[in-house]
């Protein structure tokens, strides 16, 4: 099927959004993951590292958080502290997700 690419040209690369759950230990090592193996591992490590840093900074600022969520335009990342680590939920926000629609008068 490579001739189709020659005819129509290559598509621009689109950054896939991660979907699933990862569990990390206190050092940011990924213990378990349900995210597709095609998603770059380095990016998963980046997510784990940044989430752990957020929680660590909260503890250092005397405001420890049990759960933190980052809401982006097209992705929500929710992290919950567990004993010995953190579980991180990765949920893409797509146009098919239900949204609050104000009722017509």
């Amino acid at each position, binding site marked *: 099927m490579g001739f189709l690419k020659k005819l129509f040209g290559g598509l621009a690369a689109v950054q896939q959004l991660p979907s699933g759950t990862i569990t990390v230990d206190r050092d940011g090592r990924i213990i378990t993951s349900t995210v597709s193996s095609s998603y770059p591992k380095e990016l998963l490590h980046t997510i784990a590292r940044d989430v752990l840093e957020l929680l660590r900074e909260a503890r*250092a600022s005397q405001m420890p958080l049990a759960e933190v969520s980052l809401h982006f335009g097209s992705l929500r990342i929710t992290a919950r502290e567990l004993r010995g680590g953190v579980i991180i939920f990765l949920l893409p926000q797509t146009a098919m997700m239900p949204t609050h629609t104000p009722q017509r008068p």
Partner: protein
Amino acid sequence: MDNRNKILILDDDTDWLTLCRDLLSTLPSKPEIFTANAARKALAILETEKIRLLVCDLKMPRIDGLQMLAIVRQRFPELRTIVLSALEDEEFRSRAYALGVDLFWLKTEMQRNSKLFNECLESLLGQADRDQDSGFRGIQSKSLMDIIQMECLSRSSTVLRITRGPLIAKLWIQDGELFDAETEGARGEVAFQRLLAWKSGSFENLPAEPDRERTINKSVNALLLESAQTLDENAGAAGAAGAGATEPLESLNHRKTIWKLSQLTREGAEFILAVPPEGHGEPEAFGTQSVASTAHWTRRADEIAHRLGDKLEAGPLSHVSGQNLERQVLLLSRGDKSFLVGWPTDATGNLTDKSRKLIASWDS
């Protein structure tokens, strides 16, 4: 003449005294450090030296830290105080703050974040120089409304005794509800409205008096709103009376403070913190004591979230939310400022929308 600030460290552990002295000697303002391993020695030093800041342990033999703090509050009301304790107990933290300490740090946290601790110290020493005549001493030179709000939100029962020179006022609070006030020959709501006009003073907590007769039936929120309306009407009348007369800046700022607090309490939020970018001014906060550390987290969280969003190409950052057993927090941006809004755990409704509305009216 040596104009350096003088800091006194009190702890019965001599090794810890040496560690603290070494750490505080790295402060940029190079203060003069005194140490004492017993409360009596510390009091003797306080009598002879003009100490600006006392760093005090809690667990000590004979006269413990809480007793020491109560003594210095009476004898040296201008002295700034920091508790450095190994006791990780919320009750001790609350009791220390009720005695009017400026900061409460755990020793473990201080060792882990010595840079942040030093920044808080420098900020406190700088603040002591700047704000000698305004604000309410008792907790970090907060406004009276902050203090009343904290007592009400924490559902405490106490009598607040507030002094301003020769004037004395008292507020009676039971289970977080203000039920009586007395000052300047007035009682009840009238006394409370007069007290709101005080812009400086000091306060202390006295034991609760639950059997006292109730003279206030409105909530603090309602009293604040009425006060804001009254101040607005007075400012309007003053404007109509004097053509070209402008409201004194102090009075205008005080009116804005009352209005902002009334907004906060009406929405049901616990606190709000407005953090400008680094180097563009000081954070502004209502309803929270730990401004420096919370502002630090707000800036870092905003930075980390934006960096992550750019890396993942996940779209613009809407907000960051967090929660623990005590509260929920929301971090939002507006313009170049970051805002952190704190809500009680049982707050209902769309907190993101409520926070946006609060921030929009706050920043207008």
